[in-house]
């Protein structure tokens, strides 16, 4: 156990500890907790949507509220639930996997988290201040520029804040992986999850600026009277779609690649077999990322870009099936000839393979532009991307939670409840979304507040709603599992699965503050497995025991984020009343002032002394 946490502390001290922490593991846990909170919020929104669509011409919620609900469901799930939870895994696992004591920029890491959290809170506050954004999560202009009220302003500012945070995270992970790999950890010995973190970070680095630019243009149109998207004044609304999807398509891969990474850890661990075709997996990851930037206009086949553009983007889209197929077959080949242990983590991974394959198949079908003229903006698309994002990303997150829970929190989640949750969620997921492929082709466009009576859409929608409740039940069981495990679970060993392959399983659960007392010597791919096969119980140290340098905690990231948070209100409401500019400037002074303090004040960190380290158990 780390020195800090062995001392009994009051609630205030713990809170202060988390507010000021720059420890990647604590930040990772906060990402997971905040992501889970927003996941529940988005889930409740999903249930409300499905209740509204349980029968034709239902009036459970009004048309305006429905549009707010779909917008917030999509935005919340993508930006505030899936992304942060994956960033949580990246924070919590990646430094351990490469044998590092922290990330490259611990302060920036903390700042990134708080910006994301306050961005998410900001956008959700719109519910209480006059209505949430209602132009869909894609926020197409001119609907988004002409939407009355302040909902879309909250959308712009909330995404801008959290987007900045994500960008910081991406840069941080890139630098960490490039510069902080431990002794012997060459690139081609990195675990797949680290690789996918690396590639997803590259995607973040190049994709998020496109969103930032798009949001700035939207912000200027809405708040400062510019006309980038206003056709009447010479603007162009299709530009928003390009900017959004140049970000938006890579975003799909920012989400799915780390999930692929999680499965690439879990499947070998529980098949007790090395990942089949490691180098082709790495290559496929890069290829998917590269192609992911080349296909954004497949979201725009019906915009009228013309047959040449449609053909190019159609072929590009279909090409992504090739590296994705390589991955699927490599996972299957990893299991082939193995000795597969099926526990909750592995169940999610096993459930993922057929589910995601369906999502990938419909992806290729959507890429065939001629057929997409029918699929586009219908429930077929809804079904497709939920197969990818739930069947791929959410399954990945849940698999990862079961797998790394002991490493994060020191306890193994309950297996029985884990399995019940899986089956409820898995059955519910297919019930909800499979039928939606057909609903779309039967003439049900997406984002429909009501479907009309006597159009043959009743049964399908009812089945879909029933499925959604199964998913909710599965989620509830999972939450009960977390509570139960926290209260009653037994302390986990270093390697609770017995078949861990990567470095994180060589250290205690949860990992100590400094991760590695002595940095381990990596002798190949799956370093811990290599040592175990050689009969060693732990890694060979690559350095003598010495003082460990650690960064100091700081409250400044919270203060900077709060500054921008306050300034956002100034931006939003100065449209109505210029005196809100005071709030804008006050917020900016807080944020920039704190940045100045950070820049001018030297902070050399602290050392954990050798003598203290010797007292600690391994």
């Amino acid at each position: 156990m780390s020195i800090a946490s062995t001392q009994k502390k009051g609630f205030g001290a713990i809170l202060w500890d988390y507010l000021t922490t720059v420890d990647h593991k604590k930040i990772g846990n906060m990402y997971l907790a905040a992501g889970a909170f927003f996941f529940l919020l988005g889930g409740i929104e999903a249930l409300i949507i499905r209740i509204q669509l349980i029968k034709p011409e239902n009036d459970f919620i009004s048309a305006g509220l429905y549009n707010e609900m779909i917008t917030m469901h999509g935005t919340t799930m993508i930006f505030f639930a899936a992304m942060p939870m994956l960033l949580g895994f990246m924070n919590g696992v990646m430094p351990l996997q490469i044998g590092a004591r922290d990330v490259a920029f611990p302060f920036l890491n903390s700042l990134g988290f708080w910006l994301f959290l306050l961005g998410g809170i900001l956008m959700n506050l719109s519910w209480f201040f006059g209505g949430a954004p209602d132009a869909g999560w894609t926020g197409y202009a001119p609907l988004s520029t002409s939407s009355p009220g302040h909902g879309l302003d909250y959308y712009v500012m909330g995404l801008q804040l959290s987007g900045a945070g994500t960008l910081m995270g991406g840069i941080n992970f890139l630098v960490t992986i490039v510069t902080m790999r431990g002794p012997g950890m060459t690139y081609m010995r990195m675990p797949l999850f680290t690789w996918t973190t690396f590639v997803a970070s590259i995607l973040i680095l190049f994709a998020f600026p496109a969103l930032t630019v798009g949001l700035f243009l939207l912000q200027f149109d809405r708040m400062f009277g510019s006309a980038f998207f206003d056709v009447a004044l010479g603007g162009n609304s299709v530009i928003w779609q390009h900017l959004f999807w140049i970000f938006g398509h890579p975003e799909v891969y920012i989400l799915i690649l780390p999930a692929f990474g999680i499965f690439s850890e879990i499947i070998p661990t529980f098949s007790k077999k090395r990942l089949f075709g490691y180098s082709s997996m790495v290559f496929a990851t890069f290829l998917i990322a590269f192609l992911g930037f080349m296909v954004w206009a497949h979201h725009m086949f019906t915009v009228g870009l013309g047959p040449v553009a449609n053909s190019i983007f159609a072929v590009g889209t279909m090409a992504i099936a090739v590296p994705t197929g390589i991955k699927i077959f490599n996972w299957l080949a990893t299991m082939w000839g193995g000795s597969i242990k099926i526990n909750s983590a592995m169940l999610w991974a096993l459930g993922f393979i057929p589910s995601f394959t369906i999502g990938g198949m419909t992806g290729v079908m959507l890429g065939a532009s001629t057929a997409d003229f029918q699929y586009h903006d219908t429930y077929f698309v809804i079904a497709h991307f939920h197969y990818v994002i739930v069947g791929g990303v959410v399954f990945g997150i849940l698999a990862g939670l079961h797998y790394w829970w002991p490493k994060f929190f020191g306890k193994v989640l309950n297996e029985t409840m884990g399995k019940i949750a899986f089956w409820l969620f898995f059955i519910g997921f297919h019930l909800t979304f499979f039928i939606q492929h057909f609903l779309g082709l039967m003439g049900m466009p997406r984002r429909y507040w009501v479907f009309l009576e006597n159009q043959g859409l009743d049964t399908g929608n009812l089945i879909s709603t029933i499925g959604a409740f199964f998913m909710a039940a599965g989620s509830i069981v999972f939450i009960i599992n977390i509570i139960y495990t926290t209260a009653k679970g037994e302390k986990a060993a270093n390697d609770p699965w017995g078949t861990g392959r990567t470095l994180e399983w060589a250290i205690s659960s949860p990992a100590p503050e400094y991760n590695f007392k002595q940095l381990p010597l990596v002798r190949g791919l799956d370093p811990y497995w290599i040592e175990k096969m050689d009969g060693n119980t732990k890694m060979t140290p690559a350095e003598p025991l010495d003082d460990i340098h650690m960064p100091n905690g700081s409250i400044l990231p919270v203060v900077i984020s709060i500054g921008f948070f306050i300034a956002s209100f100034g931006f939003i409401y100065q449209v109505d009343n210029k005196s809100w500019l005071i709030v804008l400037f006050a917020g900016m002074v807080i944020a920039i002032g704190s940045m100045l303090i950070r820049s001018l004040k030297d902070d050399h960190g602290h050392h954990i002394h050798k003598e203290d380290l010797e007292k600690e158990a391994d």
Partner: protein
Amino acid sequence: MSHWMGKLKTLLMLSFTAIVLSACGKENLTALDPKGYGAEKSMDIMILSIVIMTAVFIIVAIIFTIAVVRFREKKGREDYIPKQVEGNHTLEIVWTAIPIVLVFVLAIPTIITIFDLADTAEAESSIKVEVTGNQYWWHFDYKGEEIQTSQDLYVPVGKKVYLDIQSSDVIHSFWVPTISGKMDANPENVNTMFIEAYEEGVYWGKCAELCGPSHSLMDFKVVAVSQDEFDQWVEDMKNVNPEEKPQDAVASEGQDLFEANNCMACHAIGSSPVAVGPNLTNYANRTAVAGILEPTKENLVDWIMDPESIKPGNKMTGNYPEVSRDEAEKIAEYLMQLDHSDVNPESAGGIID
């Protein structure tokens, strides 16, 4: 036991058949029973891609099932360490090369059909209609014919009709699933596509791009009639006299109220460039009130009295003087008597219920 099994089997068979039947959807709305050129081409590509993809899925499913069943950890052999295989070049080349071939098999017909559907060579010699999407209704302007109408688009069967699609406000998308795939209505440019219906009929159309609260209520119809009937309809529509007095007194009062309340500032009757609100020519033959309600006088009265309760966020609410129920009934009577053509949805076989 077997008795129970038999019942279960029958039940399963029945529900399977029911699902297969209902999976095709409603005739003249579903994309799965195409009756037009674009929808047919889309269907061809859909079937090709589904066949390829299903084959891939079956292969994955078989390997997956065998792997999970055969290589599951055996009781008593928990300590068994399988051979650590690095990879296999032949296998990896196979599962890279085969998908590349499959992509080509799908890509080539896709590209051919993309260019086929974008072909505008016959545009000049065909009927052209300017289609304008509005929150939340569709305006149709037959080029060179001085015919404007809304919500019901009349086309001759078996002929290519070119649509110049645009929006007056936010983005909409024009979609008649049974006849053709969709095309967006953008505010900044005109998108041209053609539709060709193979059979006479009344086809459902939907808006497929989120355009505001009543996005889901922006239905319209395409009425495909025979060439002769279409010619007749064009003739009738050209000869509409907007000033014509109705026969009975109630409708006549309605016409006066229509004028007194300045309804025609937005709603034209007869050929007119005014397109602020739907053109109401030939209103008696409309397939629906406000695009979604049964075409009855009661529904029209409800609409005139309180459009907001029917289409939230519409542009009519609050933009006309308050009318009493009595007045609304008279206006409705007048509109329901605007029967300008004998060619109507019934000529195309009527709406499928």
